[in-house]
């Protein structure tokens, strides 16, 4: 590789040709402040926070887009540089809604942190502010333009990472607003509710729809039996909000925390993930053996489902008819569990804790009520749960270990790995292999489908039948796989698609990392590794060995794909328009 040597603040730095000055400084541990920069996603030199002096150049240069050259001399901390950054920041602040103490991103805001670091003590430029625009029509995502700094990180994620592209900078100059076409609401366009825009936002301009009040009210209502399920990915992310490291495993702290909040029973979505494998694994075998529609594509990820409905309606028949584990849980809670416990299902209030904003949309889909009641009453994100716990004075890191309740809290390692990309595929293969061959699977770790590579493919020998599988995460990767399916280029039998990069551990409802931390830490990989550690620590690691699931079939459902299963655990999909009506 061709290397280039330059000097930054008197220090010699050697970096590969084509690197930017910002990258070179990063390598030399010289900190240059950034705001619009998001490594690998948004490197556009828009905000001018990262300006530096370059010897021989007439003006200050944006280091995030400035390529290094041999012998270049860079100064990152001169009076001119500091003054320029301050002016830029003050101008941004002069048009920013400064309601910091009541902002959802208070103390986790890049603009706030930068103001503190650059020593902004007052704003010298009082002036006109943008017209406030607040869009809370989507059940998942709220946009607040009064806090937007026009960095375009959300736009880049939406277009490049997710291949969705429903928000852009509209209009010009002072009137610029990041919004959908015709300034419609996110609820009116083909937004899939993934929330990756929220993860990319440095400020509070994008946030989840806050449903915590509904949960507080239910918890305070003595008439209601309030139960909660926690998604696989929560156990490797909630701790981060309480000072534990990235990906810290807090599986046993979760029941303790949720009980202290006042939930009547604390259950686990890992249970219904195991149930999903029973249904979906059987569905796959039936399609494979009886010439059904293939490839079968997983249906756990509600962002992916809505994406398919808008962008690939011709593949809706390929989707598994299985509801997601969140919805299966709700349907079982309001039927089987209600009967078993002798509780009127109308009194049962199901809350789910999800790493996901799209789960909010999924929970309110009108068809998700086969028990006669809405399967899930409220879906909260990891961040909302964290806020509730903080409000109640509960510190997750200081709680004792406790267990989930019976019976809907019993799970296997196969359920746990649903939280990472490739996990649903691996869990399904563990069960399908044993069902087909009748033999015990000795090496249960399908490492070919693990990891953060965008698209993973493998051919698995299942009792003499070669099964071609593919795993994609992040919707732009999903597009590549789907286009190959459509063109007939690929011959897959089974595809797992997760909407968010990294799978659910990287979901849009998870704790938010700053741009700076994201540069150094692949948080999806760290959390994903933790998920596999959870799996390894479990006594049971195959869904069909889950005793509570076995009992559920014996006492209630009969067998996978039974009439009752079909009624309660399966669903249908709706073609949705690609473009809005105006």
């Amino acid at each position, binding site marked *: 590789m061709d290397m280039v040597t330059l000097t930054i603040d008197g220090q010699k730095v050697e970096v590969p040709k084509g690197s930017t000055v910002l990258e070179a400084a990063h390598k030399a541990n010289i900190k240059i402040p950034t705001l619009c920069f998001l490594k690998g996603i948004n490197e556009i030199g828009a905000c001018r926070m990262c300006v530096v002096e370059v010897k021989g150049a007439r003006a200050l240069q944006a280091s995030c887009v400035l390529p290094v050259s041999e012998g270049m001399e860079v100064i990152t901390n001169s009076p001119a540089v500091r003054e320029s950054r301050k002016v830029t920041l003050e101008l941004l602040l002069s048009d920013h809604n400064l309601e910091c103490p009541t902002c959802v991103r208070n103390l986790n805001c890049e603009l706030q942190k930068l103001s503190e670091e650059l020593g902004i003590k007052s704003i010298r430029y009082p002036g006109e502010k943008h017209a406030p625009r607040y869009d809370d029509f989507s059940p998942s995502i709220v946009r607040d333009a009064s806090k937007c700094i026009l960095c375009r990180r959300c736009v880049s994620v939406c*277009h490049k990472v997710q291949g969705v*592209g429903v928000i852009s*900078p509209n209009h*010009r100059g002072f009137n610029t607003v990041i919004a959908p*076409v015709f300034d419609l609401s996110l609820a009116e366009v083909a937004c899939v509710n993934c929330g990756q825009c929220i993860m990319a936002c440095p400020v509070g301009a994008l946030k989840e729809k806050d449903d915590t009040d509904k949960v507080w009210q239910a918890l305070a209502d003595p008439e209601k039996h309030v139960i909660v399920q926690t998604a696989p990915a929560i156990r490797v992310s909630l701790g981060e909000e309480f000072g534990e490291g990235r990906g810290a495993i807090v599986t046993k702290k979760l029941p303790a925390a949720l009980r202290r909040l006042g939930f009547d029973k604390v259950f686990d979505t890992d249970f219904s993930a195991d149930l999903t494998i029973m249904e979906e694994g059987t569905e796959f075998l039936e399609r494979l053996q009886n010439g059904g529609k293939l490839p079968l594509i997983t249906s756990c990820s509600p962002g992916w489902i809505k994406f398919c409905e808008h962008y690939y309606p011709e593949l809706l028949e390929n989707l598994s008819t299985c509801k997601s584990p969140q919805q299966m849980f709700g349907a079982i809670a309001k039927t089987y569990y209600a009967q078993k416990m002798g509780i009127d299902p109308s009194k049962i209030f199901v809350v789910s804790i999800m790493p996901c904003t799209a789960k909010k949309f999924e929970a309110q889909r009108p068809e998700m009520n086969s028990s006669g009641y809405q399967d899930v009453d409220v879906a909260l994100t990891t961040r909302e749960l964290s806020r509730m716990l903080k409000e109640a004075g509960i510190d997750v890191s200081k709680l004792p270990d406790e267990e989930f309740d019976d019976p809907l809290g019993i799970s296997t390692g196969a359920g746990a790995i649903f939280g990472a990309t490739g996990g649903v595929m691996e869990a399904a293969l563990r069960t399908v292999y044993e069902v087909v061959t009748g033999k015990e699977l000795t090496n249960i770790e399908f490492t070919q489908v693990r990891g953060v590579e965008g698209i993973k493919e493998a051919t698995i020998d299942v009792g003499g039948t070669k099964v071609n599988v593919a795993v994609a995460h992040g919707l732009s990767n999903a597009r590549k796989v789907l286009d190959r399916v459509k063109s007939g280029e690929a011959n897959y039998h089974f595809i797992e698609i997760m909407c968010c990069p990294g799978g659910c551990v990287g979901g849009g409802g998870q704790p938010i990392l700053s741009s700076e931390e994201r540069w150094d830490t692949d948080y999806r990989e760290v959390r994903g590794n933790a998920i596999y550690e959870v799996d390894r620590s479990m006594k049971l690691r195959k869904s069909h060995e889950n005793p509570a699931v076995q009992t559920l079939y014996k006492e209630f459902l009969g067998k996978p794909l039974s009439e009752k299963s079909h009624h309660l655990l399966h669903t249908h999909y709706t073609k949705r328009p690609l473009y809005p009506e105006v």
Partner: protein
Amino acid sequence: MEAAVKKDFEFEQKLKMVDEMLEKYRGQRGALLQALQEAQGIVGYLPLEVQKKVAEALNITLSEVYSTITFYSFFNLKPRGKYQIRVCLGTACYVKGANKVLDRLEKELGIKVGDTTDDAKFSLDACRCVGACGLAPTIIINDEVYGRLTPDKVPEILQKYE
């Protein structure tokens, strides 16, 4: 009723022309500005139906198309009048009192910037420098340039248009 049917028919014809025009740009995302300019030349403005066609032909998102249209003052989202008035608000014109000329135009026509008169005769837009700073302040009506204006010259100019 008949007039409305005729209008729909004409619009459909124009959409077909847009389709034909877009053939040469198929798959070329870099051709966005040319495609939009030609589409506006055919239809007179760029409604959603036209934007969708451009997005599909060039294989880009509708959002990118809309973003580009709203960035450039030359592009119109609404139908424009028979005579399109553009008032230059570039630096030279502005300093020479272009905003007073604009105010007078709004008053005379009874519409605001960006709108079209009810009889579809005039539409009024502001634009940036038209490159005739020596004539500041200037307005352009269709392809005709009027310079060294004062607000009082506005009624006389408008009278020339039938």
